[in-house]
């Protein structure tokens, strides 16, 4: 269980993810990118707080369409991701996967809601057998609780003592669908009914995410699967497209999201310094990606 993160560290890591994704959106709006992308803007604390306890080589992370933050937090390979989204040869998957189909060093994503949970469970079974103390963390959204595979796997994870942490990023919406009309009852109780420990917390409190994830992961590693429900909010559209939410609702959350909270804790000079560092790292990342050739195939 990693030590708590300093505010500067929270800020640096979350800001990098934020700026990375804002850059993607700008590139889309300029027509520089094709396809689609789902940003985790507003939810960066989930990635940073949970993944700080994980190590490539030992642990596995499985994620979904909204995966950039998780990828950057786990792999430290933002330029590979940038190149992937740009369809470059140097991308994480050489342009084959794109934004939501990534793979690197124990990090895997796929684009079909729910289907990643069985994959993660199988990986957790492998970790259990290997016995090296590794944990598998899978990130899903509130909407993905609609998929039956999630419950099939909760059942097996409990029966088989899998070292599996399911993080539910409840950002209150699935695409345009508010959680109230798609998720009945109680999310943590759904896990508890399978005999799985579940914790729910407010994602605006970044240190709370870090502490809860650390605690859960230490028991997960011993074979007690767990569910962490993070109540959060996505500040931008579902993908690049239109957003049907009330702008006032979004604006209110913009003022209180985890990055805003942490930012306020910093001295202005320190904040400026980190912002400058992040911009420069991001520029490097984009430059590296852009230096990679565009992926082209030979005709079938």
């Amino acid at each position, binding site marked *: 269980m990693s030590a708590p993160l300093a505010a500067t560290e929270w800020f640096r890591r979350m800001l990098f993810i934020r700026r990375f994704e804002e850059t993607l959106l700008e590139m889309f709006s300029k027509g520089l990118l094709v396809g689609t992308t789902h940003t985790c803007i507003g939810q960066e604390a989930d990635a940073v707080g949970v993944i700080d306890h994980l190590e490539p080589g030992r642990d596995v992370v499985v994620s979904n369409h909204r995966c950039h933050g998780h990828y950057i937090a786990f792999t430290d390979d933002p330029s590979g991701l940038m190149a992937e989204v740009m369809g470059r040869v140097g991308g994480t998957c050489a342009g084959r996967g794109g934004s939501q*189909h990534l793979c690197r060093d124990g990090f895997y994503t796929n684009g079909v809601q729910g289907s990643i949970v069985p994959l993660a469970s199988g990986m957790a079974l492998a970790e259990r057998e290997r016995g090296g103390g590794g944990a598998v963390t899978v990130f899903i959204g509130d909407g993905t609780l609609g998929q039956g595979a999630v419950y099939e796997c909760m059942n097996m994870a409990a029966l088989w003592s899998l070292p599996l942490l399911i993080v539910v990023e409840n950002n209150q919406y699935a695409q345009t669908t508010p959680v109230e009309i798609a998720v009945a009852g109680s999310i943590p109780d759904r896990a508890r009914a399978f005999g799985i420990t579940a914790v729910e917390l407010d994602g605006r409190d970044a240190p709370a995410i870090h502490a809860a994830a650390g605690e859960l992961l230490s028991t997960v590693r011993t074979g007690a699967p767990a569910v962490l429900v993070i109540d959060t909010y996505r500040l931008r559209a579902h993908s690049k497209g239109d957003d049907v939410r009330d702008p006032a609702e979004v604006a209110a959350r913009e003022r209180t999201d985890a990055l805003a909270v942490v930012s306020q804790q910093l001295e202005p000079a320190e904040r400026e310094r980190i912002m400058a560092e992040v911009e420069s790292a991001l520029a490097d990342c984009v430059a590296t990606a852009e230096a990679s050739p565009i992926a082209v195939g030979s005709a079938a």
Partner: protein
Amino acid sequence: MSSLRCGAALNRGLTEAMAADERVYLLGEDVLDPYGGAFKISTGISDRWPDRVISTPISEASLVGIAAGMAIQGYRPVLEIMFGDFITLGFDQIVNGISKFREMYNDQVRLPLVVRTPMGGRRGYGPTHSQSLEKFLIGVPNITVVATSEIHDLGAMMRAAVEDDEPVFLVENKVMYGRPNRRPESGRLDGFSVRESDGPYPALTLSASGFSAGTATIATYGGTVPLAIDAATELIMEHEVFCEIVVLGSLLPLDLDPVLESVERTGALIVAEEGTMTAGIGAEIAARVQEAAWDDLRAPVRRVAAADGIIPSAPGLEDAMLPSVPELVDAALRCEAARV
């Protein structure tokens, strides 16, 4: 009508079907207004009939079964699956449910339901959001699989599907949505003469030579139709080779009469589809046509399809594996070579 985009034409047909019969219900993810579904085909419907539109959780497998249950009990559900790639989640409900009930229950039930879904690539959505999986549906007995295209009367096709007493899987194409729904006028379209077969899901046969003898027939459907038209046009302009195009409306049951009639005139067949080649629509058509038109064919049936593999995200990689106009032109030129 001619300036209406295909997506809007489908939406109009669906709206008319909702208005015509109050047993018609619309179910799907994010179908409520103002969003109206990821591709807007359901726009305006929940505002008008809030009680007959159900916005659902992301539970494709069960939704297919729920549609079946509603249909057996006398309703006419229209289920929108956001991307055709996710039809796989409902595959058990299709194969072991919808395909079985009427026959297995000795005709005691009917399943008047529609599952509509967009297929196809060329939008950079990557491996899990770009596939053309209708090939798996045509192996399922007792269902109807309809392929919409930009030259079909899309509103009529949608209404026919909703009014059908059998389960209909309506395959749409993402790129098509944004293109104009063009229709033949006085039997002509894009310089081709057009014949349209009867029935709710007609086939359209296009000929540039007034249905006189030609080099080859291109049988195709859905998102590959504009490629076939471009290829046929290029073949005339640059090679003086005349092909007919048969745009299929129903993929299952597969009424191949228009294809066989065309092959009688051309003596050769190319099947073009956007799905991966192995076990595709082209396989079934080739198997049937080589048997039924053995004496008419002067060359083997050829298939043009996506390469067997994933649909990559990067546009340059995607383009290379999806079927293309040059491949179609090339196939036709090979038929021309076999002719002389």
